[in-house]
């Protein structure tokens, strides 16, 4: 890597330097969930610390704690050895902590310069915004990071990589001492990633402490100096990257006691129901082929953004694939819309319950019968008694707890809302059910009910596809697992090959 350093900024820190920021005993609980349990984290000047952990390990929560968005229930934050608190995001910014998020939190309609200085614009002596000074200083900062951007360009004309540069320029404009990068390369191309790495080197050379969150092992080993591993909200290890290898890091990440009990999966796998071949999308996924049999639970594992949900949305007719074929019971079917998919016997329980699942404001029974109105109505008129009967049948099977089926779904808990959405789809009597992150964000008790029900569905001969990012769930529920990485199928695993390590290795692209 070729980085031209300005000597005045180069302050390489000794390995035993004191941490600029040190978190100790941080605990954060949400109703019913302990997101962080007495975790510690140290960030050193001029060094990159990689924060590693599965989804749900507590990485985002610690970032929110550091940036003043969440307040911890217990624990101390030491800045240069002195205890501090960040009651608001502004306090964190003032303390020199800035975050560059997965999706940049910038303003599309404002210019590059305005984005860099928003909240601390240079002022004239009359208190008005000094545009000339703002442009000049923006130009200086952009030059410092070799970003060839016009300060007057509106942000929405920039690509995602350039937006990251603006976010970094913003970090420099407040002279940030701690820069948090939350999966900054997730949406970048190869060339853009290289440029980002150079920038990280530059920030290091300027003596800034960097917290780097990533799922990609190659980049962790390339740019990080230290690592910290979280698992299930707990700190499970830290040290120097030079003293650890990939295998050990994976083991730290996943090595858990399986404390959830899954229903026994003795599925009588029958005939092939669904076969997908050469399924491709211009930008999301390519050459996805798999088959699914009656009574089988097929797991789809991968990192966030690996293309799993995108494949499922195409199967369900929400997006249009460019190539490929779907066969149901051996007959080729064309699926152009969700109603085609429902007709073909495929249903999809989406991940985003809020946006894609239940209709808040409608009562439970109207949510359940929404896709089945053709069956419950006669000559174009709805029959409420049929609707209630259908709803009662499926909500009872799911053990839905509600005062009445006439109740607004908005008043139900997350777990019960999920049950309403699942009941809605089961009522269409499907052949194939796709469950996208079926237990995300719901409490343990409801999780167990959903798992038990999933097993029951398979036992009744339904073919189940389960997209999940939770390793215990994937291992505990699936007969077979397809691992996706960057829009491609990375591996198909079953039997003895199904271990936490193999899943993570294939998902992260680590050679076996």
């Amino acid at each position, binding site marked *: 890597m070729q980085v031209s350093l300005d000597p005045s900024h180069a302050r390489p820190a000794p390995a035993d330097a004191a941490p600029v920021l040190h978190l100790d005993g941080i605990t954060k609980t949400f*109703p019913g969930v302990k997101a962080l349990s007495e975790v510690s984290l140290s960030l050193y000047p001029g060094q990159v610390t990689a924060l590693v952990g599965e989804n749900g390990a507590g990485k985002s929560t610690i970032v929110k704690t550091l940036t003043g968005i969440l307040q911890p229930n217990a624990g101390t934050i030491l800045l240069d050895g002195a205890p501090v608190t960040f009651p608001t995001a502004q306090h964190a910014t003032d303390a020199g902590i800035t975050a560059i998020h997965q999706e940049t939190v910038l303003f599309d309609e404002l210019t590059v310069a305005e984005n860099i200085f928003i909240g601390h614009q240079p002022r004239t002596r009359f208190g008005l915004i000094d545009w000339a000074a703002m442009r000049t200083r923006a130009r200086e900062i952009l030059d410092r990071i070799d970003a060839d951007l016009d300060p007057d360009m509106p942000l929405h004309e920039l690509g995602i990589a350039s937006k990251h540069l603006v976010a970094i320029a913003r970090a420099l404009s407040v002279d940030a001492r701690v820069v948090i990068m939350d999966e900054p390369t997730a949406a970048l191309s190869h060339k853009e990633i290289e440029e980002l790495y150079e920038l990280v080197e530059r920030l290091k050379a300027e003596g800034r402490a960097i917290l780097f969150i990533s799922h990609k092992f190659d980049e962790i080993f390339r740019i990080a100096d230290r690592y910290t591993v979280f698992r299930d909200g707990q700190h499970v290890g830290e040290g120097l990257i030079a003293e650890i290898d990939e295998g050990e890091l994976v083991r730290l990440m996943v090595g858990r006691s399986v404390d959830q009990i899954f229903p026994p999966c003795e599925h009588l796998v029958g005939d092939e129901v669904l076969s997908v071949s050469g399924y491709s999308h211009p930008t999301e996924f390519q050459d996805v082929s798999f088959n699914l049999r009656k009574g089988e639970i097929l797991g789809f594992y991968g990192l966030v953004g690996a293309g799993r949900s995108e494949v499922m949305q195409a199967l369900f007719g929400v997006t249009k694939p460019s190539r490929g074929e779907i066969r149901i019971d051996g007959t080729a079917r064309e699926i152009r819309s*969700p*109603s085609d998919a429902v007709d073909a016997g495929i249903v999809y329980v*989406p991940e*985003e319950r809020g946006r894609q699942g239940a209709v808040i404001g409608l009562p439970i029974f109207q949510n359940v019968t929404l896709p089945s109105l053709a069956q419950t109505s006669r000559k174009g*008129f709805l029959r409420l008694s049929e609707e209630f009967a259908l709803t009662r049948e499926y909500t009872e099977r799911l053990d839905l707890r509600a*005062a009445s089926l006439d109740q607004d779904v908005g*008043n139900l808990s997350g777990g019960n809302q999920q049950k309403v959405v699942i009941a809605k789809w089961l009522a269409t009597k499907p052949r194939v059910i796709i469950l996208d992150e079926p237990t995300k964000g719901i409490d343990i008790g409801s999780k167990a009910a959903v798992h038990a029900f999933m097993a029951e569905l398979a036992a009744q001969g339904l073919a189940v596809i389960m997209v999940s990012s939770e390793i215990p769930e994937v291992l505990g529920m699936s007969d077979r697992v397809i691992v996706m990485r960057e829009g491609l199928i990375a591996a198909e695993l079953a039997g003895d090959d199904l271990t936490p390590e193999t899943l993570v290795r294939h998902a992260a692209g680590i050679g076996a």
Partner: protein
Amino acid sequence: MTAFLKSREAILLGAIAVLLALIASRFPAFVEPSNLARVFTDTSPLIILALGQTVVILTRCIDLSVAANLALTGMVCAMLNAAMPGVPVAAILLLAVAMGAVMGAINGVMVWKLSIPPIVVTLGTMTIYRGLIFVISDGAWVNAHEMSPAFTGFPRFDILGLPMLAWIAILVAALFFVMIARTPLGRAFYAVGGNPGAAVYTGIDVGRTQFMAFVISGALAGLTGYLWVARYSVAYVDIAGGFELEVVAACVIGGISIAGGAGTILGTILGALFLGIVKNALPVVNISPFWQMAISGTAIIVAVAFNARSSRSKGRIILKSAEGHA
């Protein structure tokens, strides 16, 4: 029952009762059945249009072109009658509904297929439809003496003490109750407005549902166009000018959420009646009709503030013990 007492509809009903009682205390004649029937008849066009607007707003849209649609259809009906007095009223009714539906469909197609925001589409067509009236009429009026007795007599035709206009409003309201409660389309209006994302995943075509709402709203505007022109026995460029805002106001006062997906048919009817009573009572109690606007405006703001409050208190229930009691 307690749920009903707390509902928007019950509060509106109470407000209407209080309003009537206040007026009756000084002008008992106002609440005599014959006068109430007159007030209802007078409010009928507002009720019909507000019902059409209700389904549009339920799907997260708005139709500002209803009054212009009404005026254009009314002018076409009046000119047709003046030119060919022999055309039967049934044919004119059919023409009015069809013309209105086509104008609604034009709005709907632009929202559905071109994804133009409804407020922009209907602001545009509102001006175009209004302009077309001038083009076809050259700005001239069609007066009572040019209209046939059958044409002007239809809305006033008396059945059981109520004129045809009032019966049509009652019929439209009844059809709406059935459509909303008992047809897949009625359910789709709520689903599309309540959660468009979920509606797509359920196999409901969001754009097509919004298109249907515009067609219904347009058809009712067309129907009202003929009734309006016939009732007042005059057609000119500016009839029902600004009436679209009164229509939207009736919906909002009736509890139809501008954010879509919430509200009832009964609410809209009561909202329209509330405005109608205020409008008819003010001249009686000798208050300038200009106050009517201020009163309607206040009612709208109170109603929206009420909506915002009731939706705020409906947060997520976190306490397990509170679940099921909601």
